[in-house]
């Protein structure tokens, strides 16, 4: 039995029960797998494929198509900053530059301690609150340099404290538990 089944049997069953076909649960299961494995590893994809009875190459094709799945390792905290037009009109490009400089990484880079990855992403439906980002899908809005510093120091503190990091994905998928 794989790691997902061992840890999340009831969530998995709940997700499968939402649809008439197993395959429909695949995107949610991939989200869950990524939370567990860190990114879409071979093992993660094989386990998802096994649960929904598809060939692992199908999972791989989905991992390539959908932008929220990471095919390469990423930091513990993925900062996805929107620099689309509406956000850029309110300073998002400069915000990305500032964030990269502070963490000493380029866009798509990960800090040496493995804590942070910065990505630029398309519209996140928060254009009126730019500059903004999602950190592991959690919204952080109306940001400036000071707010960014605070966010980073809070995340560092969280990483140092023992225990599992909070997960938006797990919290939401937990509703499927029966």
């Amino acid at each position, binding site marked *: 039995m794989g790691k997902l089944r061992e840890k999340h049997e009831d969530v998995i069953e709940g997700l499968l029960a*939402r*649809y*008439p*076909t197993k*395959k*429909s*649960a*695949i*995107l*949610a299961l*991939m*989200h869950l797998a990524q939370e567990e494995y860190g990114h879409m590893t071979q093992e993660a994809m094989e386990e998802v494929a096994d649960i*929904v009875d*598809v060939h692992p190459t199908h999972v791989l*094709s*989905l991992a390539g*198509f*959908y*932008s*929220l*799945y990471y095919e390469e390792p990423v930091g513990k905290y993925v900062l996805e900053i929107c620099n*689309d*037009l*509406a956000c*850029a*009109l*309110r*300073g*998002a*490009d*400069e915000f990305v530059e500032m964030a990269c400089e502070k963490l000493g990484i380029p866009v798509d880079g990960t800090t040496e301690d493995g804590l942070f990855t910065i990505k630029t*992403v*398309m*519209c*996140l*439906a*928060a*254009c*009126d*609150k*730019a500059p903004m980002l*999602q950190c592991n*899908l*959690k*919204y952080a809005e109306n940001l400036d340099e000071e707010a960014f510093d605070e966010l980073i120091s809070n995340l560092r503190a969280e990483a140092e404290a023992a225990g599992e990091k909070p997960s*938006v*994905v797990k*919290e*939401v998928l937990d*509703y499927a538990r029966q």
Partner: protein
Amino acid sequence: MAHILLRHRDIEDLHKFDVYLEHGGYQAFQKCLEAYKPQEVIDIVKKANIRGRGGAGFPAGIKWGFIPKDAEDVYVVINADESETGTFKDRELLEGNPHQVIEGALIAAYAVGARAIYCYFRGEFMDIAAPFEEAIKDLYANGWAGENIQGSGFTCHVYPTYGAGAYICGEETALLASLAGDLGQPWSKPPFPAQSGLYGEPTVVNNVETLANVPPVIVNGPEWYLEMGTDDSPGPKVVCLSGHVNRPGNYEVEMGTTYRELIDDYGGGMRDGRAFKALLPSGGSGPVITADALDAPVSFEGLKPYDSLMGSASVIVMDETTDMVWAALKMIHFFHHESCGKCTPCREGTFWLERVLEDVYEGHGTEKDIQILEDVASNMQGKCLCALGEFATSPVLSTISHFLDEYKAKVHGEAEGATMEADQETPEAAAVA
């Protein structure tokens, strides 16, 4: 005026089942179950002419009427994939007023005989989905979803489902493919979802805001609804205002409100007292409009004389310091990134549009490149599998048509180029401040 859609702004904790119920919640659905046959519900929605708020403006009642009456497995899908640049209205409705959206979907399900509703959230909305998940839990606990709802004999299940980052999944056939566990790529219509949708069964796909319009129409009647807005576009509309205005945000207005009123009265005017230059009325998907169109009404027909469209009413406002070639490049970068790759004109067209535009923007372009941009764009129009490729051409073509001088300045000599560069720095510097 009290809100009809953004009611959570007037009523605290409206996302909670008890509060929603206290304020008239589920009365519309109950009225349907008790007093109306499914066809009567369709007729009311048709009469009110509730037009699709996702951007296409297709009348919801007519869409519902396409579902074959003898079909056994019918699905209603709530399109909560909101990903258009500049659009953030569905997010607020889902988070603040989820029950009104679900009630609208339940009424749709009753009208078309669906036994299951899926709400397809874009994956990035997981952070705001908890109120919706809670709402579903409460519905089941109180007999408003599931088997034999309120003893009426009508059975309908409600499920949330999550995408994983793909703008194209807002296109209904791509959404249905994604919901079935496949790549989110559109199919060529026909078949339309009403004939063959989710799992090959008849399916209604409605936008979040469209469904939120349904309960008040059932309660107050179509005449009440038709009194609001314009003749062709009745009712309220949530407008997403962003960019260079003082107060960006969602504003619920009556259809027919002008773009000038949006900027001045709702948005508090242009930021830093700068002059208005242009706006994108439908996120990236509609041609840019300039000051001469500001007195046009926000409605499905209002921008026709200006060769543009309201779409989902995602209004991105740009002031005099904005470099329009830069703005077009931002938009084409979006469409190239989001092209699903299935059809050649879109996949290749968006690639070349971005590449050539990048050259022009960076000052390596020639006059010929402007011609190439127009050629590529016109070879995409009418040839793509879905609207994405079609839409991708509008920011490029409309900025060339309105701001050709800016394109020319980019591709000609250093004197003009230098002026442009000075201009380029202004919006960014201003945006940081």
